[in-house]
Structure formats: structure tokens, C-alpha cells
């Protein structure tokens, strides 16, 4: 049994609750206990744009809240994962930690380097393991051909992840998908970024990025894309029709969060357990290929 503080981040609980719903559902059934800490705030990554110190303080504040309960953190968002893990590494430096702790004492907090950070997919990969996932499968997903999309901050900065997977040639999401019975593909634009952090400043440039990947995937005959970050989800699914109109083409590529796919394999109810009806793209074609 593993136990973590669940770090929801800003966007998932507000805009993509199906990610949270399905992550909680699979975690419960795979022996991952999730503890809610209602004091958690924004991870600080975006604030770093305007103030590196401001971003670092918010990240440290979150680490300190989890540490006060003797818990490690599990994140759903790839960017929260990358930034919080990077902060753990940065705060190994004593002088930096002292400087930050002086400020954290203003709100009666302290971080001493005990709390670590992992992404939910990594926790499933390492704590549950591929064998146990395979044993938990109740539905046949073998007719599904899907495209994994890792999310940049799942494995970067590389120095913060102690050799877990390889950002230039990642494999873990492929393995996690295979364990559900679905078939993950390799494709040219696998490593492309979703553009989620460019979008607020230049939607046009973000759309160019999204179009590259959708265009590549269009020719690959896939049933869905599998993502592990709500921002990647919002970019590839939420922006898909806008991109299609803009580039005068048609895209109908469903996008699922990994825990939705895993939960489907494990026999969860697509609507009530996994939030399939909250995805904007209809998923009936995906469901039609799945055998009870």
C-alpha cells in the first residue's frame, strides 16, 4: 500500500475533473491511498515567468504542507510534477533552503527535504507495476490502437528524476498502455510539445504546434490519443476543432487521460467512474471496440 498527498494543481479540478475522478478511481483499486490537503496552492511554475523567487516560494510552500503530514506528493499535471520535483532538487542546497525557509516561517511552515514528488503515472508504474496492472484488467482493449503523448514535464528537467525513463526516448507510458491491453504506436511527432504555455500569450503559435501533431496522427489510423496531463488534454482535445477550422481540415481524434484508459480496462463504468461523458469528443467509437 502506498500513500501520497494528491496535488490537484489549478486546472484539473476546475476544467478537467474527469482526470481527477478517474485517477482517484484507479488509485483506490490499485492500493494507492490519496490524501487531500486543502491548503495546497498553485505549484508556482507559471509565476516563475514573472518572478523566479515567487515561483520557488509557492513550490516550497506546497512541499512544506505535504511534509508536515509526512507525505510524498503525487501530481496529475506534468508541469506541477516537473516544477515541484525540480524544487525538491534545488532545495537540497542548504543556503537556498535556509533562504526559502526564512520566508516560509512567515506562514509557519518549513521544508526540510523529506517530501519527494512523483507523477501519478510514475506511481502506477513503480508502486503498482506492470504485472499487477495486467492482472487487474477485466475488459479486452486489444482492438484499440492509441498514440501516447508524454507531456514535456513528465520527465524534464532530467536532473530531477533520478534516471526514471529517458526524456529523449521515453518508454514508460508505452508500457503502461500495453499493460492495459491497448496497442501504443510510435510516431514521428511523439516528442512534440502541446504548446499549453505558449497559448495564453500566442494562441496562433500554439495552434501551429497542435496542428503538426494532429496532422501526423491523422494518417496513423489511431482510435485515440493518450495523455497524462490536463493541459495537454485541453490543447489537443479542447483546441482540436478550432485548429481543424483554421487549417481547413477535419480532425476527430478522441483524447483520453491515462487513468481513463486504465480504468476502462479495469472494468470501471465509463460515465460514472471515469467521466467519459465530460470529454468533449464523443467516445462511442472507442467504446464500441472494447469487449466486455
Amino acid at each position, binding site marked *: 500500500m502506498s500513500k501520497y498527498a494528491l496535488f490537484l494543481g489549478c486546472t484539473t479540478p476546475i476544467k478537467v475533473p474527469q482526470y481527477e475522478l478517474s485517477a482517484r478511481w484507479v488509485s483506490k483499486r490499485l492500493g494507492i491511498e490519496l490524501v487531500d490537503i*486543502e491548503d495546497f496552492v498553485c505549484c508556482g511554475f507559471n*509565476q516563475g515567468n514573472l*518572478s523566479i523567487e515567487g515561483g520557488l516560494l509557492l513550490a516550497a510552500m506546497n512541499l512544506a504542507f505535504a511534509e508536515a503530514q509526512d507525505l510524498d506528493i503525487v501530481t496529475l499535471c506534468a508541469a506541477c510534477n516537473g516544477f515541484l520535483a525540480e524544487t525538491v532538487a534545488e532545495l537540497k542546497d542548504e543556503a537556498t533552503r535556509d533562504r526559502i525557509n526564512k520566508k516560509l516561517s512567515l506562514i509557519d511552515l518549513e521544508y526540510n527535504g523529506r517530501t519527494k514528488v512523483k507523477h501519478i503515472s510514475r506511481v502506477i508504474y513503480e508502486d503498482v507495476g506492470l504485472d499487477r496492472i495486467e492482472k487487474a484488467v477485466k475488459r479486452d482493449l486489444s482492438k484499440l490502437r492509441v498514440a501516447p503523448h508524454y507531456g514535456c514535464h513528465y520527465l524534464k528537467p532530467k536532473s530531477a528524476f533520478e534516471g526514471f525513463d529517458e526524456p529523449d526516448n521515453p518508454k514508460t507510458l508505452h508500457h503502461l498502455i500495453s499493460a492495459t491491453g491497448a496497442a501504443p504506436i510510435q510516431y514521428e511527432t511523439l516528442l512534440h510539445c502541446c504548446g*499549453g504555455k505558449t497559448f495564453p500569450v500566442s494562441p496562433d*503559435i500554439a495552434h501551429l504546434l497542435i496542428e503538426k501533431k494532429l496532422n501526423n496522427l491523422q494518417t496513423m489510423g489511431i482510435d485515440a490519443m493518450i495523455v497524462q496531463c490536463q493541459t495537454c488534454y485541453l490543447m489537443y482535445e479542447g483546441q482540436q476543432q478550432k485548429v481543424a477550422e483554421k487549417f481547413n481540415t477535419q480532425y476527430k481524434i478522441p483524447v483520453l487521460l491515462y487513468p481513463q484508459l486504465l480504468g476502462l480496462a479495469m472494468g470501471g463504468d465509463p460515465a460514472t467512474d471515469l467521466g467519459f461523458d465530460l470529454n468533449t469528443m464523443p467516445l462511442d467509437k472507442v467504446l464500441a471496440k472494447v469487449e466486455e
Partner: protein
Amino acid sequence: MSNKIIRTAELDPNFKFEVTAHESARDLNYCFACGSCSAGCPIHEVFPDYNPRKLAKMIKLGLRKEVLSSDYIWYCATCRTCEQRCPQKVSFFNVLNVLKNIAAKEGYAPTAWVEQTKQVMQTGIVFPIEETCVKKREQLSLPSLKGEGKKAKKLIETTGLDEIESRG
């Protein structure tokens, strides 16, 4: 980042020291302009005018105002591919954050990022917590959100981040 003629009077030779004085941008001193960062950059791929190597050169040349007032520094997708690819272990991603921090202090910050900070000081996250969202979460039996930004605000106020104004 136009190709206009550079007048030496517009150059600030101290700019590169100003940037590399920040710990996370210090390694820029080792940049030898190989262009691996640009070759791996997804934004450069779809919008070639955006060019990390060129930005690195502009910093060295001292084109301070041109760099800081440019929209381009805000286009970075933060994918960190540049730092993965750099043979000199420069994190151009970090260099950009330093540039954005300096630009923000001088009034060039885009509204989107400034608004996010204001929101964090209120609800603790970058969004307001609206009634429809509260209801949806109840329906799904998900725990309610606290929506409290006071502690975050206290920390933010120690950095001057709360005083940054957008370029409007």
C-alpha cells in the same frame, strides 16, 4: 528581432553580465552559438523567427531593449528541449525565465501572466472558483476546494511579484 541596422549607441555591453548574474543563467557564458537549442525548439520549428540561438547572440551583443521588449521571449513553450540538447549544458529555458523576470520588472509582462498571479493571491490557484464548478464537483462526489490565497499572497509579497504590472 528584425534585421535592421544596429547602431552601437543602442548597445548595452553590460546586458550579458546583468543576465548571467542570475545563477540559473550563468552557464550562458559557455554558449558557443552552435544552434542545437534552436534545432530542437518546437516553437522555432513552427515559427522560425523565434530563435533561441539568435536571442543568445542578441544578449551577448547587448541589444537590451530589443530583447526585453520583444514579444518573442514570452512565446517559449517551456518544453526544456533546448537544455536537453545543449552541448554546453546551458538551459536556455532558464535564460528565458531570467529575461522574462527582468522584462516584467520593466513593465513588459503580458496581461495573461499578471492576471494569473492576482488570481493566485485570491483563491490560491490561477482560476476563480465559480458556482458551476462547485456544483459539478459535488455531483461527481469530489472534495470541495478551499480557494484560499492569503498565505500564497504573503509569500508573493516578499518578492515584489505582486507589484508587477502588465503592459496592458
